[in-house]
């Protein structure tokens, strides 16, 4: 299995979720994060103290999927999260050795 982690723009979350549901991906986990990258925040002058807002609010999703559908999932996330503007984010794919469903103790693919 693969663990797909994507950092996306917050307001694209609903679309991404919808897209994954279509693919029959049963679940995902979401966290609020701050992103630092090419996309630069505007230079704020807050009451005279100048600084660059480097960190931008992003959303991180983590979704475990069977290896065979990993590429489709990456595809789907890309399409749904794409706005074409800098800062759209990244998708990271890692290998996942084991998954357990706490409720039932089911393992791996059965646990997804």
């Amino acid at each position, binding site marked *: 299995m693969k663990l797909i982690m994507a950092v996306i723009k917050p307001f694209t979350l609903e679309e991404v979720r919808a897209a994954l549901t279509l693919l029959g991906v049963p679940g995902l986990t979401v966290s609020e994060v701050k992103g630092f990258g090419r996309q630069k925040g505007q230079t*704020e*002058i*807050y*009451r*005279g*103290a*100048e*600084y*660059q*807002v*480097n*960190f931008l609010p992003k959303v991180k999703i983590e979704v475990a999927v069977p290896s065979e559908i990993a590429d489709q999932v990456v595809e789907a996330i890309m399409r749904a999260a794409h706005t074409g503007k800098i800062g759209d984010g990244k998708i990271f794919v890692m290998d996942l050795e084991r998954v357990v469903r706490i409720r039932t103790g089911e393992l791996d693919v059965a646990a997804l």
Partner: protein
Amino acid sequence: MKRVLTACLGLALAPALLNGSAMAADAAPKLDSGDTAWMLASTALVLMMTIPGLAMFYGGMVRRKNMLATMMQSFTVCCLVTILWMVIGYSLAFTNGSPYVGDLSRFFLQGFGANWDKPFLLGAGADSATQTTIPETVYMMFQMTFAIITPALITGAFADRMKFSALLVFMTLWSILVYSPIAHWVWSPTGWLGAGVLGLPGAADFAGGTVVHINAGIAGLVCALVLGKRIGYGHDNMAPYNVSFALIGASLLWVGWFGFNAGSAVGANGRAGMAMAVTQIATAAAALAWVFAEWGTKGKPSVLGIASGAVAGLVAITPASGFVLPGPALLIGVAAGVGCFWGATSLKHALGYDDSLDAFGVHGIGGIIGALLTGVFAYGPLSATTASPQGVNIGGLAQFESQVIAVVTTLVYSGVMTLIILTITKALVGLRVEREEEREGLDLVLHGEQIFQ
């Protein structure tokens, strides 16, 4: 002339006399339940300005790690000054003593048991004593809320880096050595500044442009310079963590300010009404002026901007509130909005000091604008009394000069004394937390608490 000085709080009685409020002109002065009711309510309103008003306004502008510590400062100052005022502050400010400071005849509020149910005669014995229609307890309490908010305003300048112990020492000395004397100069019937010097009319400061705002503003500037910049200033992101608190705080300051300004009429009368009206108008004008100036120069109208503008307007109209009409209030507001926007952004940025929450940029600059324009726009009849039927003479150059003197004196005395007090405090307990502690945040380091954990 003499009376003009007491204009600040005394003259309010004049309208009371003129406008047939309960206090008739008969021999024995009586308490007026209506005036007393308004002053009781005003006292509650002004207390609300500091807690929770100022605590939220300042607390909302700092970073998360310092939010509680910042709110703690306003609350602590409120408690500390209450005791100081009861012990000695009130006595030094409002007993006759000399033109420069009061005496100890009200030490620990002695004598309050005797005339708790009689109308208070401010400056009894002095030829310019002013008769009020409220008990001395209420007068003392109303004034206490001013004595509380003034030092609390200073905390905005050294936010994020001062020791809690240093705060206690500094505020104790400052309240006694700086606030009480200046309040005496301007508001005591025997005070020299209110009396007028060089044959000029007395300084006109209705609700505290000099005593409260310029005083706190310059003290804040000195603190900012002495303590130095916050670590990471100009480099780290120091955006306010909770702008909603800042906006709510500004709102409570606005509402409470009705007690501050209209309450300074020491009665529920026509002058109080006019003071409330001009306060509202100047505040709204300043808020819009700031936010439009910001929109034009920075590209976006910010929530923090409109809130700051409102406070700037409240500050500037304070000394003028019992002296001017709606038209001039509008102008004072616009001037304050633009002026303080410049002060809190360009000026601070240019000079490069770190007045964290703009105690000087808003209260210093705003107070100066207001104090000077009071001399320009004062409308005599509002401050007319039997003694001086003209009231504050209108647009007279003399009055303007007198205002300049009051402003300069306050800037110099408060600035120098603040510097001395900081030096003493530093010697006793030190001023600033350790570098590591500042980076970790005052909430955890000083108070062992954290927000949203």
